[in-house]
């Protein structure tokens, strides 16, 4: 079930009604209802993988309790590694097996050795990377004695399977979500109104910007050889906006939906394209994943506390793993590698923590010329890296970049006037509303119900007039 589908428009009001009116605030029934709704939501994709989700949930629940009960470090380690190996094993089989086998066979073929290896053709269970990371953070936190194991199976299952974040995050932590699941929830109108507003903004980003940009992006990337430099540059920039609006749009809908159920989810994006260097970009892009890697991989590896050389190694590891998390393809690894290379200079020079605040924090409504210059450069670097992320193969990405430089006289996009007007209007609204949210977040503008009403209505009208309604799936579902 997609957020941008009619089924969700029917599903969610039913859940909302039962959640607030039928359960009458009984926490136990609310959680059972949410869990059942979450499993139904997930089963709408493929009910067979529901068993995998339940198994993974059961495994982490059980190993968590076993670790908690055991004082013996060896036993704790046993249960910990059992959970980690099985979780990563599932991820490995479903997501990476064919990639490793394929790369191995290809490697041998370069040496002139031809091997026939059995590969399995499996469908990637939707959201597996997300719920596996939920579970892993939980067992790691128990192992590190940061939290106690959850004894209530329904509550724990809901933490893993909560439908707004089940298939594409944000990747929540037990320390943040579990206490909310165990706490009696009261309806807060202010939060709920803000939830509605955030959902509508998410829908706008998805169906008006991302899905419209997808038309240009697919056209250009599918026939990159014949398009000229200008079209290829527009295609790459369009993808930057497509992926941002697609993913942050999903996060906004998830967070907004959750607010209506009285549960706050963590922020996943913070105006990433306003970043002044790559380090700042990674503090603003897919925050729940980058902080996950920081806390569960980078810091355990020694982080920046290790020697300079080891610290650089650690940076490379988290960026490469982050790339690989996105998919079993060399393109994602190279994408991660490019970000590591872009990050290293500021890391070595110690400027990676330079920009920790929004530009408006310095009481400036408009950024300085230097700020704008840095933002543009960072955006362009990120856009070049996105070409690898979007391309089907490394060769395709290479050709794409090569054609940007050499194929000046290639095909143009030949957009109709109506398309140009429609895209310009959509982007004008997108930039205006984004700026409004930036100022509002930094208390330069006040939030009033009237403003929220006007914004929600305006966006709803524009979604209807300018949106693409082919129900395109969200990009991050594939991860």
């Amino acid at each position, binding site marked *: 079930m997609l957020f941008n589908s009619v089924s969700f428009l029917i599903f969610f009001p039913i859940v909302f009604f039962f959640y607030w009116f039928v359960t009458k605030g009984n926490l136990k029934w609310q959680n059972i209802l949410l869990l059942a709704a979450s499993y139904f939501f997930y089963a709408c994709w493929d009910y067979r993988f529901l068993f995998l989700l339940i198994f993974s949930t059961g495994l982490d629940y059980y190993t968590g309790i076993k670790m908690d009960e055991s004082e013996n470090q060896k036993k704790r380690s046993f249960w910990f590694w059992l959970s980690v190996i099985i979780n990563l094993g599932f991820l490995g089989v479903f997501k990476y097996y064919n990639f490793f086998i394929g790369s191995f066979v290809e490697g041998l073929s370069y040496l002139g050795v031809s091997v026939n290896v059995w590969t399995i053709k499996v469908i990637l269970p939707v959201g597996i990377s997300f719920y596996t990371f939920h579970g892993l953070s939980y067992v790691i936190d128990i192992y590190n004695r940061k939290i106690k194991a959850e004894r209530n199976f329904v509550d724990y299952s809901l933490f893993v399977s909560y439908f707004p974040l089940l298939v594409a995050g944000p990747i929540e932590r037990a320390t943040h979500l579990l206490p909310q699941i165990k706490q009696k929830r009261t309806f807060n109108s202010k939060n709920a109104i803000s939830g509605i507003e955030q959902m509508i903004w998410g829908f706008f980003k998805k169906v008006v910007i991302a899905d419209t940009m997808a038309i240009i992006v697919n056209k250009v990337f599918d026939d990159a050889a014949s398009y000229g430099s200008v079209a290829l540059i527009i295609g790459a920039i369009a993808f930057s906006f497509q992926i941002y609006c697609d993913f942050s749009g999903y996060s906004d809908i998830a967070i907004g939906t959750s607010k209506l159920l009285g549960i706050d989810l963590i922020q996943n994006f913070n105006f990433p394209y306003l970043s002044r260097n790559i380090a700042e970009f990674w503090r603003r892009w897919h925050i729940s994943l980058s902080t996950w890697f920081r806390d569960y991989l980078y810091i355990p590896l020694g982080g920046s506390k290790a020697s300079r050389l080891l610290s650089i190694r650690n940076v490379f590891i988290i960026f490469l793993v982050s790339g690989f998390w996105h998919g079993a393809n060399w393109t994602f690894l190279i994408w991660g590698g490019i970000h590591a290379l872009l990050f290293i200079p500021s890391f070595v020079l110690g400027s990676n923590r330079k920009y920790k605040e929004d530009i408006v924090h310095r009481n400036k409504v408009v950024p300085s010329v230097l700020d704008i210059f840095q933002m543009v450069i960072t955006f362009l670097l990120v856009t070049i890296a996105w070409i690898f992320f979007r391309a089907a193969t490394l060769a395709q990405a290479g050709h794409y970049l090569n054609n940007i430089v050499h194929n000046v006289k290639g095909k143009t996009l030949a957009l109709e006037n*109506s398309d140009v007007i429609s895209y310009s209007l959509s982007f004008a609204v997108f930039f205006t509303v984004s700026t409004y949210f930036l100022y509002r977040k930094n208390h330069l503008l006040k939030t009033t119900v009237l403003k929220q009403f006007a914004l929600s*209505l305006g966006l709803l009208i524009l979604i*209807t007039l300018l949106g693409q309604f082919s129900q395109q799936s969200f990009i991050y579902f594939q991860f």
Partner: protein
Amino acid sequence: MKKFFQFFIALLLAFLLANLLYLFVLPRVDWEFKKTKEAHNFKDKQLNVIVFGNSTGMDGINPEILSEKFGSAYNFSVGGASLQTNYVQLSYYLQHNARPSKVLLFLSSAHTNYVKANDVNPIIEYYYIDSFHIGGLTDMPLFRFRWTFVENIKKLLSFNHRSAKVINGQLQIKRMVTDFTVRKNDSIVCHDNRFYNSTGYEYMWQMAALCREKGIQMEVFEMPCWKDVQNNCADLEVNKLVGNTACNLFIHNLNNVSKCDTLLESKKDWLSRDHLNYNGSIKITDEVVRILSH
């Protein structure tokens, strides 16, 4: 919770109101709405030539020139019209008005609109079939007539669009867009009788049967397009048995390379890839008059 529901219900009501407002405004500002309303209101009208087609016909065929030669004419073409749309318009016109002597149907040069048989332009559906059809969320006016939003925005942005007029059903726009495309001689396939007998053309034959039944001469034309999609195809006579009626149609190819070269100028006559501007419409309608006069 009360405050939230007040907000939510007010939002839904305001959205509903915005839909109604859109429906109120469109017939007052939108060319196609105005024109369709005008054409729909014809009662006991005596027109000699009536023109059908989609936006290529609406921009590209000048009824004033047709009137000079054949008597009163009106261009019923509307943007995005399918052949079913044209059939609905023709049958409604014939039910309420006197029989014309000629029905001219202008097909889009790309043939892209005719792959589906069943598809009626929402404006025609609104006036001719069911004004308040409510079958789902897509029937909300803001959604149902969504393309007209950008079309009307063009009027705010462009002087040429603001100064455009609808006269006897033709949308007369003077804007000029140069055709920079290059001819591709090898890629255009000429269609045959079998092609025009496919399901996409079902309603063209329904129109033909209706015309034959009423004794009206019906002629079909393929509209011209930019150089890269012009063709070397000859005019074509096609036929089909519709019910018990044997129908014959002559498809005059205005998209033929030599015709386009003789008639049209790359710099002066185009509005877009397959749409003629006012200049182009005069030239192509003169050619239509010449063809019909022979």
